[in-house]
C-alpha cells in the first residue's frame, strides 16, 4: 500500500490561495467590465456568502463521509459508481488545469513576452508540473507555503506603494444598476472557485481542521479581493475598468525608490503561482484516477493526465475571445455546481439512505 503524503491546513490554505489569486487577478473575467467599479467592489460580499454556502455543502458531505474523500464515499455505494465518480473528477481537474495553463499562457504572452507563441514555456511548465505532481502533495504544499508568504508580502508592498496615487473621486457610486447584476456577477465569480471542489478530494490528505481552513480561506480571499479592487479603482479609475490583467496594471504603476519596475520583479512569482496551480490540479486528477484504478502506477497515470491537460490547453488557447467564451460559458457554471454540490450531495444522500436501511 502506497503511503499517502499529508499536508498541514496552512499548506493547503496556501495552495488554495495561490491558485485563486492567479486565477482571478491575472485574467479579469470578461463580464466584469460591464459592472461599474463600485458595484464590482461590493460584489465580494455576495461572493463570500455564496462561496460559504458551497463550503458548507462541501464540509457537510465530508463530515458525513467521515475522513474519506468523496470518491471513497462513492465507492462505498458501488465500485462502478466509485470508478465513474473518480473518472468524472479526474476529467474535471484535467479541464480546470488546461484552462489554468491557457490563462497562464495568455497572461505571459501578453505582458511578459508580448506577441510570442509560448509553446516552449507551456511545455516546460507542464513538464515541471508533471514532475511536481509525481512528488506528491507534500512537495506542492511546502513550496506553496513559502510562495504564499512571498506573494502576500509582494501584494501588500504593491498596494502600499500605489496607495499614494489613490484618489477618492476615482471611485464610483454603488448600486447604480440595481442589485441583480451584482448577484449575477457574484454567482459567476463564485462558480469559478474550482479550489472548493479540490477539498472534496484532498480532505483525507489534510492534517488539521478543514472546516476552519476553508472558511478562513473564503473570508480571507474575499477581504483581499475587496482591498485590491478598491485600490485598483481608486488608483486607475476608468482606465483600470477595462484592464484584463488588473494586478499587473497595479504593479506597473507601483514604484518604490530605485525599484521602478516592480512588474518585472513580480514576473517570477506569477510563473511560480501558475506552476503551483497546475501541479496541484494535475496531482488531483492523477490522485482521483488512481482511486478507481488502485493497481495503476503513478507515473503513467500522471503522464496521461498531463497530456490531457496539454490537450485542453491546445483546445482552449486559440484566441483570447475563444478563451473568454469558454471561461464565461454557462457550462462552467453547471460543471462547478454539479461537481461541488450536486454530486457530493447525491453521494451523501445515497449513503445516508443505505445506512438507514441497513440500520
Amino acid at each position, binding site marked *: 500500500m502506497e503511503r499517502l503524503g499529508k499536508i498541514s491546513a496552512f499548506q493547503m490554505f496556501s495552495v488554495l490561495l495561490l491558485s485563486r489569486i492567479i486565477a482571478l487577478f491575472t485574467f479579469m473575467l470578461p463580464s466584469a467590465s460591464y459592472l461599474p467599479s463600485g458595484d464590482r467592489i461590493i460584489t465580494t460580499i455576495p461572493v463570500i456568502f455564496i462561496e460559504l454556502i458551497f463550503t458548507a455543502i462541501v464540509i457537510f458531505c465530508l463530515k458525513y463521509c467521515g475522513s474519506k474523500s468523496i470518491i471513497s464515499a462513492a465507492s462505498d455505494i458501488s465500485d462502478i459508481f466509485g470508478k465513474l465518480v473518480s473518472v468524472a473528477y479526474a476529467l474535471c481537474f484535467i479541464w480546470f488545469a488546461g484552462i489554468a495553463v491557457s490563462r497562464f499562457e495568455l497572461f505571459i504572452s501578453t505582458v511578459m513576452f508580448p506577441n510570442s507563441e509560448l509553446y516552449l514555456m507551456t511545455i516546460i511548465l507542464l513538464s515541471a508540473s508533471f514532475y511536481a505532481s509525481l512528488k506528491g502533495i507534500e512537495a506542492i504544499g511546502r513550496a506553496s507555503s513559502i510562495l504564499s508568504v512571498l506573494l502576500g508580502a509582494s501584494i501588500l508592498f504593491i498596494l502600499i506603494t500605489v496607495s499614494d496615487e489613490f484618489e477618492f473621486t476615482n471611485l464610483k457610486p454603488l448600486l447604480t444598476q440595481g442589485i441583480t447584476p451584482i448577484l449575477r456577477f457574484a454567482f459567476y465569480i463564485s462558480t469559478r472557485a474550482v479550489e472548493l471542489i479540490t477539498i472534496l478530494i484532498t480532505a483525507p490528505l489534510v492534517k488539521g481542521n478543514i472546516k476552519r481552513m476553508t472558511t478562513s480561506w473564503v473570508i480571507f480571499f474575499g477581504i483581499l479581493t475587496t482591498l485590491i479592487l478598491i485600490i485598483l479603482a481608486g488608483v486607475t479609475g*476608468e482606465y483600470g475598468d477595462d484592464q484584463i490583467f488588473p494586478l499587473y496594471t497595479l504593479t506597473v*504603476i507601483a514604484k518604490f525608490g530605485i525599484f521602478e519596475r516592480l512588474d518585472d520583479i513580480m514576473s517570477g512569482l506569477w510563473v511560480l503561482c501558475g506552476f503551483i496551480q497546475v501541479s496541484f490540479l494535475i496531482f488531483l486528477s492523477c490522485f482521483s484516477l488512481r482511486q478507481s484504478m488502485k493497481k495503476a502506477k503513478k507515473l503513467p497515470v500522471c503522464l496521461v493526465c498531463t497530456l490531457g491537460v496539454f490537450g485542453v490547453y491546445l483546445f482552449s488557447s486559440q484566441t483570447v475571445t475563444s478563451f473568454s467564451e469558454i471561461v464565461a460559458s454557462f457550462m462552467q457554471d453547471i460543471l462547478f455546481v454539479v461537481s461541488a454540490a450536486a454530486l457530493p450531495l447525491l453521494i451523501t444522500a445515497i449513503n445516508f439512505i443505505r445506512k438507514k436501511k441497513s440500520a
Partner: protein
Amino acid sequence: MKKTVCIILIITFLLVPLNSCGEIEIVELNERLIIEAIGIDKENGKYNVTIEGLDSYTAGSDSNSVSGEELTKCYLFEGETIGMAMNSISVITGQIPLFSQARVLIIGRDTATNFLSEALDFFRREYTTRTDILIAVADGKASDIVSADFGKNVSAGKILESALKSYKHTGTSVYIPLYKFLNNAMNESDAAYCPLLTVKDNEYTKKKDVKILGTVVIGKNSDTVLSPEQTQSLTIINNDTENGDMTIETEKGKCTLEIIDSISKIKTEIINEKTVFDIKTKIKCDIPEFQSETFSGLSKSDTEKIAEIAAKKLTSMISDTITEFYIDKNFDIFNFNRRINLADNRFYSEQLNKGGNFGKLSVFNISVEVSVRRIGKVVLEKE
C-alpha cells in the same frame, strides 16, 4: 529504477521544445532600438510617428565621448495607423524597438484635440508600451519637440522627462502619466489635461530648450490652455501640489512665498437642484525672500498680513480658474462631476442626459488659509 524512468521521460518530453530552439528568436541588446521619446502627429490622414532611439551600437562603443557619434537618433515613420508606423521601425532602422523604456509620449496639439482616442488606442491596448509613460502635448507638431537639438549626446527623452518632472519644484505644471490621462479621457464628463510644451532657441548655446507653456485641456473636439498661474490653482484644488512659489505685494515690500504643503478638502452637497461645493484649502508656506528698502526682519503682524494677502490672492486665483474653465467653458478638470456622481447619482445622470453642463448649476464657497512657518529673520513686536 522509477527515478531513472521518470528522468528519461522528462528528458524525452523536453526534447521536443529543445529541438525547436532554432526557431526561437534571441534578440541581443545591440539589436534593439531603445526608445527614449515618442511623438505622434496626424497629417493628411496619416500618422507621423517620430521616435528618438538610443543608438545601442554607439552607446556600447568606446567612442562614446563628446567627439563620438550621437548617442541618440531620431526617426520619422509614417503609416495609416500608429501600429503600422511602429511596425516599419525595424524595416528602416534594422533594429527591434523596445518601447518599455520610453520616457515621454508627445502628441501634436491638433492631433490631440481632434483624434485623441485614435492616437492613444495603441498605447492603451499594446502591452509592449508602459502606461506610466509621461504624456504631454506639443504646441504645434510633436515631431519638432522630439527631434529638437538639445545638445550633443543629450537625449531629448531625458530632457523632456526632467522638464515634466519639474512640477515638483514649481507647482505650475502638471505631472500626468498615461494611465491618469486615460482615466480622465475615458470618463464621460471629465476633460483630460496634460502639460503643453514647446521648444525655444537658447541664444547662448545655440541649441534648443524646452519650455512648459501651461496645461492643455482636451475636451470633445476642442481644447483650451491654462496658464502656469491657473495650473497652480488646478494642482492646489486637485491636491497635486508638492511645492511651488508665489509672489505677493505688501505695503512694506515684495514677498516670495514658497509652498511647502497644501491640502484641499471639498465637500459636495446637492441643494434644490444646485450643487454646492465647499472648498477649504490649507497651505503652509516659507518666506525665502522679502524685498524691502531695508534688511529688516518680519514681525508677527507682518507675517499675518502676508498670509492674509496670500490667502486672498489664492482664493481669487482658484475662483477665477474654476469660473473660466468649469463654469464658462464646461471643462471639468477638477473632478467636480465625479464628486456630484458620488454625492447623488440620480441627479448626475439626469443632468448628464440634459447636456451635462454642471458648472452652470454649481455654487462655490472657497476659503483658503495660509500659514507662514519659516521667515528667515524674526523681529519681535514693539510694545
